[in-house]
């Protein structure tokens, strides 16, 4: 990052000359973000400390919403489901994505072989949910396929918990493998040739090549992919709302879904806001993992 100290006196003069102009150029972005993102954020934080249902005025009740939140077994279940989402989406889509990237690396026709994995990527969460709800419905496409192999006693995929969360994670993996493979492929292609050639000359192959050369060189990228995956999975909403609506009961709720239900179904604005704040704090902590990478010094101003 270039600080004031590294700018020449001439550059500093020039900067003063453009001060108002620069403020004019940055103002639209700052204003829009301040009004539509930061003000609501502050208001949600305030509401989390009040009792409010949209009528009348918010009434200050301190941390009572947070106490109620942690006392609620439904909320704890929701936290556990969200953790399952975080772990599951790290293990399956990121893992298979890395596998596909390694398999297609330097392979003739690799671009075409990656294509099937990329097709689902641009689908909406609801679109994925529509397809997979259909496949997983009782007696649906999956059960028919299993019956053809003689498996008749299948579980109720979207009803039995925690199986329903697991199959929704797999549906998300179906969508997410492609983009992870694409990112890892970009990473693999940026590895310089010389150390690879040298390692090959020394007879390194397969696992050894991966462990000693590829993995260390992919590590910065992996940190980003892992960070993105964690943050995205913490916010999981669309696919669960589309496939189970958090049910049966509250069995497959995630934090994002619990927040939505408390706020917009039960009109308990204070409690809903408290859950939003909790989710935000967790997300921020997870974000640090990849923000450190994103805001690293080499791209400073």
């Amino acid at each position, binding site marked *: 990052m270039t600080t004031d100290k590294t700018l020449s006196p001439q550059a500093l003069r*020039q*900067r003063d000359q453009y001060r108002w102009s*620069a403020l*004019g*150029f940055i103002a*639209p*972005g700052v204003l*829009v*973000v301040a*009004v*539509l*993102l*930061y003000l609501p*954020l502050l*208001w*949600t934080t305030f*509401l989390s400390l009040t009792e409010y249902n949209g009528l009348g005025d918010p009434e200050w009740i301190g941390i009572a919403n947070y106490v109620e939140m942690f006392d609620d077994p439904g909320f704890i279940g929701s936290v556990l489901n969200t953790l399952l989402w975080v772990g599951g989406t790290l293990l399956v889509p990121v893992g298979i994505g890395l596998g596909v990237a390694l398999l*297609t690396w330097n*392979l003739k026709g690799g671009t075409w*072989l990656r294509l*099937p*994995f*990329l*097709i*689902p*990527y*641009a689908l*909406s969460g*609801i*679109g994925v*949910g529509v*397809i997979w*709800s*259909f*496949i997983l419905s009782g*007696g*649906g*496409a999956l059960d*028919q396929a299993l019956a053809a192999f003689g498996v008749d006693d299948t579980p109720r995929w979207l009803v039995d918990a925690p199986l329903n969360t697991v199959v929704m994670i797999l549906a998300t993996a179906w969508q997410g493998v492609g983009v992870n493979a*694409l*990112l890892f492929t*970009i990473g693999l292609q940026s590895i310089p040739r010389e150390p690879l050639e040298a390692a090959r000359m020394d007879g390194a192959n397969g696992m050894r090549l991966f462990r000693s050369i590829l993995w260390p060189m992919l590590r910065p990228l992996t940190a*980003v992919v892992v960070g993105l995956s964690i943050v995205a999975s913490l*916010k999981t*909403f*669309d696919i669960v*709302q*589309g496939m189970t609506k958090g049910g049966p009961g509250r069995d497959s709720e995630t934090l994002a879904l619990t*927040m*939505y239900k408390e706020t*917009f179904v039960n009109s308990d604005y204070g409690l809903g*806001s408290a859950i*939003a704040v909790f*989710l*935000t704090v967790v997300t*921020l902590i997870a*974000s640090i993992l990849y923000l450190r990478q*994103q*805001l690293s010094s080499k791209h400073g*101003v």
Partner: protein
Amino acid sequence: MSRVIRTAVLAVLGLFWLLPVYLLLVNAAKSPEAFTTKESWLPTDFSLFGNIAEAMRLSGLAESAASTLLYAVVSPAIAVLVGAAAGFAIVALRLKHGFAWFVAIFGGTVFPLQMILLPLFDAYSRTGLFDTQAGMIAVYTAISIPFSAFVMRNFFSGIAHNVFEAAVIDGASTWRIFARVYLPMASSALVAIFILQATFIWNDFLLGLVLSQSDTVRPIVTSLAGMQSTYGGAQMSTVLAGGLLVSLPTVVLFLFTQKFFARGLALGQY
């Protein structure tokens, strides 16, 4: 591993990956009379276009499509320009405390949408912006700006400051330098951000769910979700056809602009 084995493993896994797409296509093409929940794997007839037409009639998917196209074009277009202006102020004009301003804008993207939903709903209801196209465009623009500013700042950092100084010597105003020198140089990055954000907006469900309700304003994915819960039991093949219709634009856009996508993702992450 030998190339043959690698190719074979990928081909088998790839075919497996395409099975849900096959099931979607086959069953979305079945007429409501031919469709049964017991025989999902075999095609029966081809009524895909009839089903799509029916899906567009039900749940107002056609009106949603028009509005969503508007959101997915206008909001990212504004956001890339606003983001580019912010990047220009920080990098080329060397705005004082530029990094702090940058963090302030970028910070708008790190927290979950849940944090702004309720106040937006409340404020939109009070100001008459609830269930309006203007309201949807405003919120989609706002959530697109941080990423856009982030990428554009990174991009402009790669341009030598001499370019700016040369333009100043030629007597150009800052606005002119921005519009005539910096924006054209950044066209590939601008397109990359635009495509990523347009896809994101087209696929949005949550903001549409909270901030709109009528068929003409509601975004298409939110309409699809409504259609799934209303008609999912009785007219499954129509719902699947609707899902196909909603998904096709972003899938096609993505497959044809993979390079831009990869570039946008790479610009955003390094």
